[in-house]
């Protein structure tokens, strides 16, 4: 084990790796997911261009404040995951597990806030069939909502393994795999939030 300074120097000297962190299989999955979201976003934008009035009108009925808190929750959880990966890289499994559980908790906060929003919508009689805007709003956010759940399951599985001291500085691909997926979930929301809640 070298000092961190040495490590940094060595890393710059070495050729950088040609593959992203984590198992390459998860990246194929991430690419597929990103493709679906990209098409969904473009479909939203083009459907909107035909009915801008309607979209602007119903966009105003959304709660932008809860969406802000949700964005902050996801950003924070992503940050926690980064810290968790650093901890795993440094061989500190216990710390890694703590960061990951904190990230899962932030994901849980997101779900609670989003679910309360859905409850308000359903109480108001809004559904996928209400109009094109709500169709897209509910489809996009619910599709993303399910990704948050899946990401939390993955992070929890990684956190459990980290809690059992299951990773090492030489072998922590599992942590990076879960982290990459979670960042993807966060990244997609970063586009979704302005597109659906703000842009008009």
């Amino acid at each position, binding site marked *: 084990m070298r000092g*961190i300074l040495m490590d940094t120097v060595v890393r710059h000297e070495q050729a950088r790796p040609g593959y992203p962190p984590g198992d390459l299989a998860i990246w194929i999955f991430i*690419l597929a997911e990103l493709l679906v979201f990209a098409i969904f976003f473009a479909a939203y934008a083009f459907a909107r261009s035909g009915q801008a009035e309607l979209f602007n009108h119903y966009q105003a009925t959304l709660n932008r404040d809860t969406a802000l808190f949700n964005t902050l929750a996801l950003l924070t959880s992503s940050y926690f995951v980064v810290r968790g990966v*650093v901890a795993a890289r440094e061989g500190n499994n216990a710390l890694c597990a703590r960061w990951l559980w904190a990230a899962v908790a932030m994901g849980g906060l997101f779900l609670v806030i989003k679910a309360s929003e859905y409850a308000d919508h359903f109480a108001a009689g809004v559904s996928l069939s209400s109009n094109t805007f709500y169709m897209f709003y509910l489809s996009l956010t619910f599709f993303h909502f399910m990704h948050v759940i899946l990401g939390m399951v993955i992070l929890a599985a990684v956190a459990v393994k980290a809690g059992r001291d299951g990773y090492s500085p030489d072998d922590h691909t599992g942590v990076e795999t879960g982290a990459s997926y979670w*960042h993807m979930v966060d990244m997609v929301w970063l586009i979704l939030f302005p597109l659906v809640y703000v842009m008009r």
Partner: protein
Amino acid sequence: MSTKTNIIQPNRQLIRPCTVVYGVLVVLTLVTWSIGRAGLGGLWVSLLVLGFALFKAQLVGDWFMGLRDIRGIWRWVVVIWLAVPGSLITLAFAFSHGG
């Protein structure tokens, strides 16, 4: 375990780059939210908001996912992806505001 803790100790005293990035992400999110709250709209405001969003996503890809340390095609995978919805959304908004 204790030696490892010692080794990384110096790093603890600095602000980590990822913490700075997190701060930038939060600030840009608040700006975006404020624009929405002020009820601003129109093509240029929308594109500005979209630009923030793409930049934020890029930050997540580079610093959180760690793609800036990668060479080859995978280094650009998020950039390339962002270009697709980014340009299509721009096109659609230009279309709806122009026509």
